[in-house]
C-alpha cells in the first residue's frame, strides 16, 4: 500500500514542480518586457540575465519555503512560490471578479478571465499555512496602527481602511464582553451576552445608519472600522481592573472614550455628506459612551 502511494505522490510532485518552473519562466520575461522596450538596446544583455537570476532567486525561495513548510503541523506538501505582500489580482491563471459599487450591492459586472491555463500555480493559492497566518496577523496589526494610533504617515485619516478585516473587531468585541463579565459580580452570563449583542448589533445598526444617510462606505469596511475603534475602550477596561476607586475609573473611562471618538470621527464624518455629519457621528459616540458606562459601572 505504502509503496503504491509514494510513486503517485512523487510524480504529482514532479509534475507540479515542472509546471511551477514553466510558470516562472513564462512569467518573468513578460514582466520585464516594459523596461526592456524603454531601455537602450545595449543594455539588453543585463535585462536578459535578470530573468535568469530572478528565476534562481525564486527557486531558492521555493527551497527555503519548502524547508519551512516541513513543520508536521502544517501538513501541505504542495511546493511554494514567492508570496507577494498583498494578494493582487494579476495572477497567471484564472480569476474572476465581480464589481460591487459602494452604494450597496449593484448587479455583478463582467467576469474577467485572466489568462486561463497559462499557469496552474497561484501565488497565494499555494503558499504554506504559516504564510497565510502571518499575513492575516500582520493585517490586523497594521489596521490597528492605521485606525487607532496617531500615525503621521497616514495618507488621509478620513479614508476608510483598504485592507479591512473582521478578525480584529471580532477579538476586541469578545475581549470587551469577557472583561466586563469578568468584573461583574452578579449574573455574568447575562452581562456577557448583553455586551456582545449590543456591540455587534450596534455596529451593524451604525453602519446601516451611515449608509441610509447617503454615505459612501462599504458595509464590511465600516463594521471593521467601528470594531477597531473599540480598542481604546478595551485598553480602558483592562486599566480599570487595577484600581476600583470611582475617580480613577472615571478618568480612565473618559480618556479611553476620548481616544475612541477621536479615532472614529474622521472616517464617519467623511463618509457622509457634510450636512449629515452630526447625525452620523452622534450614534457612534452614543454607543461608545454606553460601553464606557458599562465599564465604569462594574466594580
Amino acid at each position, binding site marked *: *500500500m*505504502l509503496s503504491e*502511494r509514494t510513486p503517485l505522490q512523487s510524480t*504529482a510532485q514532479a*509534475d*507540479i514542480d515542472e*509546471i511551477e518552473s514553466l510558470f516562472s519562466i513564462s512569467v518573468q520575461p513578460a514582466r520585464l518586457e516594459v523596461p526592456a522596450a524603454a531601455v537602450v538596446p545595449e543594455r539588453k544583455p543585463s535585462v536578459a540575465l535578470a530573468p535568469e537570476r530572478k528565476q534562481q532567486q525564486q527557486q531558492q525561495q521555493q527551497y527555503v519555503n519548502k524547508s519551512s513548510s516541513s513543520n*508536521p*503541523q*502544517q*501538513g*501541505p*506538501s*504542495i511546493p511554494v512560490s514567492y508570496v507577494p505582500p498583498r*494578494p493582487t*489580482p494579476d*495572477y497567471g*491563471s*484564472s*480569476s*474572476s*471578479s*465581480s*464589481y*460591487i*459599487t*459602494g452604494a450597496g450591492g449593484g448587479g455583478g459586472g463582467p*467576469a474577467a*478571465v485572466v489568462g*486561463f*491555463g497559462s*499557469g*496552474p*500555480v*497561484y501565488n*497565494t*493559492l*499555494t503558499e504554506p*499555512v504559516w504564510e*497565510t*497566518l502571518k499575513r*492575516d496577523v500582520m493585517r490586523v496589526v497594521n489596521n490597528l496602527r492605521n485606525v487607532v494610533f496617531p500615525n503621521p504617515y497616514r495618507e488621509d485619516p478620513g479614508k*476608510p*481602511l*483598504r*485592507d479591512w478585516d473582521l*478578525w480584529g473587531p471580532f477579538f476586541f468585541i*469578545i475581549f470587551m464582553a*469577557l472583561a466586563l463579565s469578568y468584573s461583574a459580580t452578579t449574573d*455574568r*452570563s*447575562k452581562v*456577557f*451576552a448583553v455586551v*456582545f*449583542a449590543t456591540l455587534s448589533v450596534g455596529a451593524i445598526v451604525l453602519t446601516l445608519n451611515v449608509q441610509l444617510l447617503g454615505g*459612501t462606505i*462599504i458595509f*464590511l*469596511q465600516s463594521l471593521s472600522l467601528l470594531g477597531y475603534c473599540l480598542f481604546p475602550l478595551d485598553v480602558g477596561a483592562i486599566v480599570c481592573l487595577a484600581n476600583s476607586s470611582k475617580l480613577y475609573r472615571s478618568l480612565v473611562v473618559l480618556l479611553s472614550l476620548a481616544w475612541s471618538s477621536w479615532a472614529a470621527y474622521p472616517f464617519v464624518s467623511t463618509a457622509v455628506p457634510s450636512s449629515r455629519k452630526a447625525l452620523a457621528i452622534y450614534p457612534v459616540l452614543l454607543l461608545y459612551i454606553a460601553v464606557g458606562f458599562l465599564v465604569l459601572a462594574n466594580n
Partner: protein
Amino acid sequence: MVISWQAEGEQYGHPAVCFFTVLFKFSALAFYVLFSIFVQSFVIQFVVTVLLVALDFWTVKNVSGRILVGLRWWNEVNDQGESVWHYESLDQQTLETLNKKDAWLFWWSLYLTPVAWVALGIVAVIKFNLDYLLVVGVALVLSIANIIGFTKCRKDAKKQIQQFASQTVASHMASTLQSAFSV
C-alpha cells in the same frame, strides 16, 4: 488516526488538512452540546465555541479550500473605493490531480455543518435558552459565508472551464477551416 486513514483503499491526499478541517467543526459542535452537562457557565461555552467556529472558518477559507479543492475567495477594496470579490480556482490540469476523497470530505463537511447548527438552534429555542441563539447565530453566519464563497468559486470555475472549452473548440474549428481552405 492518520495511520488508519492511510490503510484504506483510496487514500486522502492531505490527511492532516482533512483532519483539521473536520476537527474544528466537530469540536465546536461537540463542545457546545457536551459542555453544559458538566459546567454551567454560558460565558466559557460561548467564548470557546465561538473561538472554535472562528478557527474553523479561517481554516476552511484559507487552508482547506486552497489545498483540498483548489478554490479561494476574498474581498478587496480597489483604488476607486469599490468592493471587489475575488473568486479563484486552480486551472483544469491541477484540478484533476487533486484527490477526489479530499474534495468529497470538504464539500460534505461544508454543507452539513450549518444543518447541524440549525438543528441545535431549534433545540435552543425549544428549551428557551435564547442566549444560546447568539452562539448558533455566529456559527451559522460564518459557515454560510464559507458556503456562499466556495459555491461561487465552484460556479466560476465551471463557467471558466466551459468558456475555455468553447474557446479551444472554436480555435480548433477555425484552424481546421483554415487548413481546409488553404489546401
